[in-house]
């Protein structure tokens, strides 16, 4: 069970700290990442009930700067970036000409001519190359993924902990807004379905940020959380994971994120393909399901309706908060409506399941 590390293995700036905290590690792309510190189930619950701190320094940071930044991003991305103000962030698919996902990213507007794009680790080099190949004029794109680390604090107590650590103003920071902090920033974003913040800091500052958050939050139950619980939390919140729930063969219309593409907007990469696909209708779409019999769904499992194959599982797990085995799958249109009975094929056995609406979990908001 103690496999040798692949030749090209990358370590987090805080790797030592994670080792001292008792982390068990696993590979995520080229990165050796903490899988869990005590138990995936305990860490999952901590985030739902209190707060958890994730190191997600594998994520990429690409800056776009120059007088034509906005025009460039309008061509690059399928959403209307004129709608965001300074200090605001936007989730967006990054699409190829066929409308397929190169990645999904978050764009942060620092000022009129300065934007940050946070990318998925395994896609960073590919995204950066794509961005560079589409640049024009005096526009500059800089990949500073090695300069920055990213920490994410998530859970109902995270606002209190962040405001104690970094200042009261973060209590009032709205969802998908951010404020510069040091040479980085603090954003009210996350990947768990809970309230939370993501903190981008230079690698040399990261240890200090980690310590400060624990000084502020340890007593209220803040714990470090690994990638195991990150996956179960995002699955319950039905957030997509690149390489599982979407890739370059799938479009946002198929992946159920049509809200993140603006078909009214003019000329951007992938628009024509999306317009065509919308006209023709989609064959398969991403749907959620829960198992009615015993079993755990995993990526790659076949799905049938009667004897007919109707799709494939893209993500699946035991969902600790909901205490159900659930997943996401690309299903033929006729099988994708909530309530439809399907079978997941687990080790050659058909296990009954039904299609359910997403997200599986939605937090209760106080206000």
């Amino acid at each position, binding site marked *: *069970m103690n496999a040798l590390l692949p030749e090209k293995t990358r370590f987090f700036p805080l790797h030592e700290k994670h080792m001292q905290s008792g982390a068990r590690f696993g590979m995520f792309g080229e990165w050796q990442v903490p899988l869990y510190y005590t*138990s995936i*189930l305990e860490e999952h619950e901590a985030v739902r009930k209190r707060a958890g701190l994730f190191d997600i320094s594998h994520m990429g940071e690409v800056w776009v700067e120059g007088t034509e930044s906005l025009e460039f991003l309008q061509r690059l991305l399928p959403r209307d970036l004129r709608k965001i103000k300074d200090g605001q962030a936007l989730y967006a698919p990054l699409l190829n000409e066929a409308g397929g996902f190169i990645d999904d990213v978050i764009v942060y507007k620092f000022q009129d001519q300065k934007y940050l794009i946070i990318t998925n680790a395994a896609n960073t080099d590919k995204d950066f190359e794509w961005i560079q190949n589409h640049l024009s004029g005096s526009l500059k794109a800089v990949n500073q993924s090695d300069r920055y680390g990213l920490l994410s604090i998530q859970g109902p107590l995270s606002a209190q902990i962040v405001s104690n650590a970094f200042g009261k103003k973060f209590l009032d920071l709205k969802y998908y807004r951010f404020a510069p902090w040091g040479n980085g920033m603090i954003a009210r974003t996350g990947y768990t379905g809970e309230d939370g913040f993501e903190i981008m800091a230079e690698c040399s500052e990261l240890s200090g940020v980690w310590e400060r958050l624990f000084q502020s939050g340890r007593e209220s139950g803040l714990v470090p959380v690994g990638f195991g619980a990150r996956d179960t939390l995002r699955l319950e919140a039905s957030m997509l994971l690149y390489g599982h729930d979407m890739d370059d063969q799938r479009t946002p219309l198929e992946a159920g994120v049509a809200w993140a593409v603006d078909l009214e907007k003019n000329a951007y990469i992938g628009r024509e393909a999306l317009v065509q696909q919308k006209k023709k209708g989609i064959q398969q779409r991403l749907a959620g399901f829960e198992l009615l019999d015993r079993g755990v769904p*995993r990526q790659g499992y076949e799905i049938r309706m009667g004897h007919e194959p109707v799709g494939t599982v893209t993500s699946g797990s*035991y969902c600790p908060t909901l205490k159900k085995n659930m997943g996401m799958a690309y299903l033929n249109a006729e099988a994708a409506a909530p309530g439809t009975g399907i079978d997941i094929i687990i*080790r050659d056995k058909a296990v009954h399941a039904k299609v359910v609406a997403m997200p599986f979990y939605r937090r209760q908001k106080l206000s």
Partner: protein
Amino acid sequence: MNFPKELRYTKSHEWAKLSGNKVLVGITDYAQKEISDVVFVDLPKPGQAVVRGKPAAVVESVKAAFDIYAPVSGKVTQKNSALESTPELVNQDCYGKGWFFEIELSSCGEWDELMTSEQYAQHIQQEVR
């Protein structure tokens, strides 16, 4: 880590306990820690024949599925149905309430080939290294 002296062990981290010609099977303390939070166990049915070294059950953690191998060949006489509703017993009490199934031993020679607790402890040390 705890490897009771009265049990025998496999390289694939199952334990076996002999009483009469029946062998009770479970997974070791090392295995349950490595697997971590067990959320699902799929057991062989009583009457089913199992073969030494071949998969006989499946245990799944939040992250992944693992095969559990039969330490000896024979016919399954009982399974621990409690694991179907409370799979966490595997983590909580791997040598007690977290047992998997019972086999009627078909050849005594196979029993003698299993590792003692000392041998198993050495095997783990090599694996960890």
